[in-house]
């Protein structure tokens, strides 16, 4: 974190900057490309319950253009692309492809209209061959039988169009490398006649050489007149391959412009925007004893010390290895190398042992791992410490429910009672139950992975207050220690005492939260400046 970012750039980029390659007659040159766009989205709105995911977003891409789509986690990129692909129907707004109105009701209609999505997780049938995958759903037949020679020919031609006739059409897809599988998926998109190609984080599992080959391919497709949307967290990649970029923030267009001549910093400034109002309480804190010491822990090559009475935050993009680090600490993933000391206990441990040592973890995946939705609130809340509700393996359900009722009251959980099943509650109330489990167990170290993901603002504020109270300097009570991961930077800056950044699988040194800006965190996380 060396360069002080220059936020003034924001204004320059958002306004239509007259550049030879970007000089367009439109009022918002960054919004609409010159000539007739291949596809256009205007005023797209989409809400899920109380949360607005998209609030009037515009996007247009011309034939023969690569447009980078950038934004923080949760900015609305995926939702926007799902709308384009037909997987989601927008609440308002209009779309067109080549001037024709386009309102897909399903992904199949989207595909028929020529919109192809290449997702981060590839969607190929691994047991089928390359040609079977490429022509899936569009197999040529003769007298009702598969015309294999023709399939082979079509597949070969599609791969040759990509400049990759080295991929054998008869090989099962599972025998190919990830990069080759991605090419097969692109070939499939082209074989069914796509006009708009959307790539969502296509490089996340590719090596540098494969990334370069992919970029060469994208330029080739661009020359063939395809309109390409390229979604990535990695700003350098967008700058390298895209002609233009659009930034989304909180479900709105935050800005955009030509990639040539726009600095990494300026793009980050658009992603981050101005910080939100102060939701974050801060009681007086006084760091106490070191309770968790991590030395050169692999994966992540993480080293840090966590003290009682402090919150240590870990910033980083999804997929950077943050969650893996927490899981390794908690015994849910193997320790590859390095040392962990939790209070008086040295070395790796199972989750069972960690709870006994006084460490509890909140999962980022509330539905799949955090809670058992079919079980009732009392069971969910007390599962880690059932031994406190009866001796010798016995259990008193009424005492269990009484304990749960106390937490329901203290944490203001909206429910019909302790015996209601957890799945019937709202996300925010479910999250409060998952957190209450740590408090009921009375752990010393709370490991929180995305503590406020997908919950309403009111619950967020309550959880912030709660987290702050746990580490507050209160007479007569030892404060807790909190290690937390969040994708929402204002949250980290507002709550944490120190923050470390994880980038491409490596954890940087923790820095005092009041000495870093959101901008610097984003630069570090997206692989700029310090390069982590």
């Amino acid at each position: 974190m060396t360069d002080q970012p220059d936020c003034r750039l924001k204004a320059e980029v958002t306004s239509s900057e007259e550049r030879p390659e970007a000089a367009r007659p439109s009022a918002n040159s960054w919004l609409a490309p010159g000539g007739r766009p291949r596809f256009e989205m205007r005023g797209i709105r989409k809400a899920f319950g109380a949360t607005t995911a998209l609030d009037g977003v515009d996007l247009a891409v011309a034939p023969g253009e690569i447009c980078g789509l950038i934004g923080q986690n949760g900015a609305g990129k995926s939702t926007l692309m799902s709308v384009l692909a037909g997987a989601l129907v927008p609440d308002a707004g209009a779309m067109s492809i080549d001037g024709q109105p386009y309102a897909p009701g399903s992904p199949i209609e989207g595909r028929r209209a020529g919109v192809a999505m290449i997702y981060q997780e590839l969607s190929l049938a691994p047991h089928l061959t390359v040609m079977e995958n490429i022509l899936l759903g569009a197999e040529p037949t003769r007298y009702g039988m598969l015309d294999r020679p023709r399939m082979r020919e079509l597949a070969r031609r599609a791969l040759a169009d990509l400049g990759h006739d080295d991929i054998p059409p008869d090989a099962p897809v599972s025998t190919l490398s990830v990069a080759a599988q991605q090419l097969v998926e692109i070939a499939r998109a082209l074989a069914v006649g796509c006009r708009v190609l959307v790539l969502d984080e296509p490089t996340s599992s590719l090596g540098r050489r494969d990334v370069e080959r992919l970029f060469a391919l994208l330029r080739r497709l661009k020359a063939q007149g395809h309109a390409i949307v390229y979604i990535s967290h990695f700003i350098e990649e967008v700058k390298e391959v895209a002609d233009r970029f659009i930034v989304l923030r909180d479900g709105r267009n935050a800005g955009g412009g030509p990639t040539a001549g726009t600095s990494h910093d300026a793009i980050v400034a658009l992603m981050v925007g101005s910080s939100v109002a102060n939701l974050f309480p801060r009681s007086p804190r006084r760091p106490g004893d070191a309770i968790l010491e991590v030395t050169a822990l692999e994966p992540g090559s993480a080293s840090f010390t966590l003290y009682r009475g402090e919150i240590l935050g870990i910033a980083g993009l999804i997929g950077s290895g943050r969650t893996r680090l927490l899981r390794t600490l908690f015994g849910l993933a193997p320790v590859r190398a390095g040392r962990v000391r939790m209070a008086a206990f040295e070395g790796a441990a199972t989750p069972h042992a960690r709870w006994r040592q006084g460490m509890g973890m909140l999962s980022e995946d509330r539905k799949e791992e955090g809670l058992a939705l079919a079980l009732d609130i009392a069971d969910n809340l007390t599962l880690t410490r059932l031994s406190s509700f009866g001796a010798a393996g016995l259990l008193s359900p009424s005492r269990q429910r009484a304990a749960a009722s106390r937490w329901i009251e203290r944490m203001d959980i909206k429910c019909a009672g302790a015996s209601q099943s957890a799945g019937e509650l709202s996300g925010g109330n479910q999250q409060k139950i998952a957190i209450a489990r740590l408090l009921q167990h009375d752990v010393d170290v709370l490991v929180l992975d995305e503590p406020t993901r997908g919950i309403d603002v009111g619950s967020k504020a309550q959880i912030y207050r709660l987290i702050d109270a746990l580490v507050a300097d209160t007479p007569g009570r030892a404060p807790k220690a909190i290690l937390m991961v969040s994708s929402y930077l204002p949250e980290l800056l507002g709550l944490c005492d120190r923050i470390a950044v994880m980038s491409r699988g490596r954890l940087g040194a923790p820095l005092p939260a009041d000495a870093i800006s959101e901008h610097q965190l984003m630069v570090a996380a997206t692989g700029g400046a310090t390069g982590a």
Partner: protein
Amino acid sequence: MTARSLVDRAGTALALVIVAGVFGALIGPQFFAPGNLELMARQTAIVSMAAIGMTIVIIAGGIDLSVGSIIALSTVVIALLLRMGVSPVMAAAGSVIAGALCGLVNGVLITQLRVVPFIVTLGTMLVIRGAAKGLAEERRIEAPVTWLNDLLRVPRGGALLPSGIWAVIALALIIAGLLRYTRFGRHVFAIGSNERMARLCGVAITRTKIVVYVLTAAFAGFGGLLQFSKLSVGDPTVAVGLELDVIAAVIIGGGSLAGGRGTVAGTLIGAAIMTVIQIGCSQQGLANWVQQIVTGGIIVAAVALDRMRTTAV
């Protein structure tokens, strides 16, 4: 209590009342005569006993296809022990221990090899059946007559029900309590409902699962004891396909193959429903194929109704 919550809480019992009512109307009041009810209780005892154990494994999100084979093996074990001159009590204990050992094998294979329980127990179903046949040298094993042959006999004197039925009831109460009033029971529900969460919460998953399979198989061993009592010989070819009746009883009783749901009471009612259909059909003079079709229909209908009920919320 609204009609809806009544259906929610007592849906299976309601189904039993309806099924019994239909046959009662067709056959007449003698269908509910004490003698006939007791006949049904004896008929359902073996499946019920094994189904109590199956309830545990299904709540834990697993399955045990080997219970039919375990029943056969334990009849052979009892007969052999009795022939060796072992006391009836020890022979009965031997059958349950033989079952428990089979369950230990199932549990260890499932947790250590990380193969899904369906496949592991499909394999051990054949292995245990083969072992039973080998142990019996592919013959029925005659055994000296002892009081073990009277477990499902019509009781003499004041006893209301045969001792085997009392055993089913007592063990059902114990397991119902185990599931509700012990840490182990709540861990079983947690694992079946969301195994990843159970792991996050420090539940000892391997140990709990092994105990679950041991318990399930021990109940199959108890079932084998009742089976022996009925046959009075050790028969390695008995109870082929019985595991499906046992699983059906749990499912009709509200258990979910996805795990996390099921009750011992529901399971017993599920087993009773199948028996009422069986006996009702035969007393009505309906052929065996009719009762199979009816039972099959009930299984599908029970699960479909349950699904509608839970997704309608």
